[in-house]
Structure formats: structure tokens, C-alpha cells
């Protein structure tokens, strides 16, 4: 059984342009998050080049903040990469949800557009697709708007961050923590999710106390994930993903 999927037209320059302008107003909020990241990165001790390069190459705010938590003179690479994967695993669901439309366009466009896949442009594109007006330009152009504003915000935060001598005095050391917590509570909330979070907190705390350094993130992520594995969502619930950014 398959439901009718509307036809996805190929990518056009005009479509990309329209997508860019449609998401630009919303992207202004991304400047603020980029600013917070730039500020936090400078406090953490990343060089300016590293700070900008991370926004350029990773382009995923929450994962970048998490990387700063682990960053030091030395960095545990495996925990960092596992954490990055766990935080960005939602991209898997986002890409999968668009697959019925993406499979209609050539592979270069299909994968090319995934390069700028992010929460806001995904949510709007999926919405258009489901309303029967699939529009790849919105995904790509909107993604570019998000990327440009994310980079701009990072540069601003870096400049601004250097000017503040004692960030903790202004509460700015809490930017990361507050950002991440707001992302947790911004997602869908259900008894199931709350249980997953409690299990995550408890297992992470135990791992933090008794297991080797930096294992707590992976342990907590798997602990919470297992709740989802064994206690499934009802089939009627809408598909995939938290609203990030």
C-alpha cells in the first residue's frame, strides 16, 4: 500500500533564491545562536580559525556546543565522534522523511541538497511536501540562508567574545548548558520521553561517578535510547524529529 506522493520538480536557481529569502527572516535567530557559539568557543580556547572552521564544516549547532564541553588541550576523539553522531542522528530521520520526494530527483541533487539539511529548512520543506507542493529549492536555498547566518553569527561572537574579560560574571559560561537544555525541552514531550531523560540522567551520573572519564555521554544516550527501543511511540504519532535552532 502506498499513499500518493506529489511530484517533486528538479532544482532551479530561481527556486533556490526563493527558498533563501523565505528562510532568511527566521535565520536571524540563528545569528544569535551563532553568536553564542562563537563566544563560547573563544572562552573554551579554540583558535579563531578552528572556531570558524567548525561552523563551516559541521554546521550543526547543538553538536558544536557539545564538542566545546569535551574540548581541552587534549580531546577524547571516540567519545567526541560518538556524541556528534548521537546528537545528529536526527538527521537520519529527517532525510528518511523526505525520501519519497527526494528519490524523484537525480542523485546529485538528492545528496547535494542534504549537505545543507538542518532543522528549520527540513521542517518547512516537509510541510510543503505533505501539502502537495514539494519544493527542493526551499531545502537548498533555506539551508544556505541558515548556513550564511550561522557563519555570520559565529564571526560576531568570536569578535565580541574577545572583548569580555570575565564571562562567568555575566553568566555567559552558561550559554552552552542553557542552549542544550532548551533544545531538550523544545522537543516533543511525553511520559515516554520524560522516562528516557530520567534514565539518561541517572545512567550518565553513574557513569560519570564510576566509569572512566567521558563515557557518561555515550552511556546516557544509549540508556535513554533503550527506553525508546522498548517503549515505542504509537503508530499514529507524526514522524521524526525535534525542532532545533
Amino acid at each position: 500500500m502506498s499513499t500518493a506522493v506529489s511530484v517533486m520538480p528538479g532544482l532551479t536557481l530561481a527556486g533556490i533564491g526563493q527558498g533563501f529569502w523565505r528562510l532568511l527572516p527566521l535565520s536571524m535567530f540563528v545569528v544569535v545562536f551563532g553568536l553564542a557559539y562563537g563566544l563560547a568557543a573563544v572562552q573554551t580556547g579554540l583558535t579563531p580559525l578552528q572556531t570558524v572552521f567548525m561552523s563551516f564544516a559541521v554546521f550543526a549547532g547543538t553538536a558544536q556546543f557539545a564538542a566545546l564541553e569535551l574540548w581541552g588541550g587534549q580531546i577524547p576523539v571516540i567519545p567526541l565522534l560518538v556524541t556528534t553522531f548521537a546528537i545528529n542522528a536526527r538527521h537520519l530521520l529527517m532525510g528518511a522523511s523526505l525520501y519519497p520526494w527526494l528519490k524523484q530527483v537525480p542523485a546529485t541533487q538528492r545528496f547535494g541538497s542534504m549537505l545543507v539539511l538542518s532543522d528549520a529548512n527540513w521542517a518547512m520543506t516537509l510541510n510543503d511536501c505533505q501539502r502537495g507542493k514539494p519544493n527542493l529549492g526551499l531545502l537548498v536555498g533555506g539551508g544556505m540562508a541558515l548556513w550564511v547566518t550561522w557563519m555570520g553569527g559565529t564571526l560576531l561572537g568570536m569578535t565580541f567574545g574577545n572583548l569580555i574579560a570575565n564571562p562567568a560574571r555575566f553568566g555567559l559560561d552558561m550559554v552552552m548548558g542553557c542552549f542544550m537544555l532548551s533544545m531538550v525541552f523544545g522537543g516533543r514531550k511525553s511520559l515516554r520521553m520524560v522516562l528516557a531523560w530520567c534514565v539518561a540522567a541517572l545512567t550518565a551520573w553513574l557513569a560519570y561517578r564510576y566509569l572512566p572519564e567521558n563515557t557518561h555521554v555515550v552511556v546516557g544516550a544509549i540508556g535513554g535510547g533503550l527506553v525508546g527501543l522498548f517503549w515505542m511511540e504509537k503508530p499514529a504519532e507524526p514522524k521524526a524529529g525535534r525542532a532545533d535552532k
Partner: protein
Amino acid sequence: MMATDGLNGLLVICLMGAVTLLTRFGGVLVMSVVPINQRVESFINAMSGSVLIAILVPVAVEGDMAARMALLATAAVMLAVRRPMPAIAAGISVAAGWRYLM
């Protein structure tokens, strides 16, 4: 463990970028072979919030009282108005205020 100075740091960031790219391509790639089933989707959804909670545990346990109050304020405002910007602003203000007053 890897050093994070200069080029080493950039290499670490490249690895992060590669993993992130894998997640961006992965959904479409996997779906072209076998559809993601509901159990996997449920696992990923539960994990995405859990990983953030896990990162925050040491901040809440080891941090000063101002840090804990900041997290509490963020959670409260987020639950009340459902917008990240005011929630983060509230958290930062509470941390700054607490440290100024206490």
C-alpha cells in the same frame, strides 16, 4: 586522546564534520536500501534528547549554585513559553544575578 592545537584541532573538526555528513546522507542512503522501521525511529528520537541530558549531568552536579539555578530557570521558561531564546536569556540572567547577589 588527541591534541587540539592548530592543525590537530582542525583534523578533529574534520572528523566531526565527516560524522555529521554521514548523518545527513545516511537517512536517504538507508531508505534506498531498507525503510527505517518504527523501532529504530523510536530509539533515535529517545536518544536525541538523552544525549543532551547526559552532557548536562556534570554541569548540574559539579557546577556552582548559580549554574544549577540557571538550568532550572531555562527549563521553567522553556516549559512556560516554549521558545528557546527567552529561556536561554533567563538562564544567563539568573546565573549573572545569582553571582552578583550571593
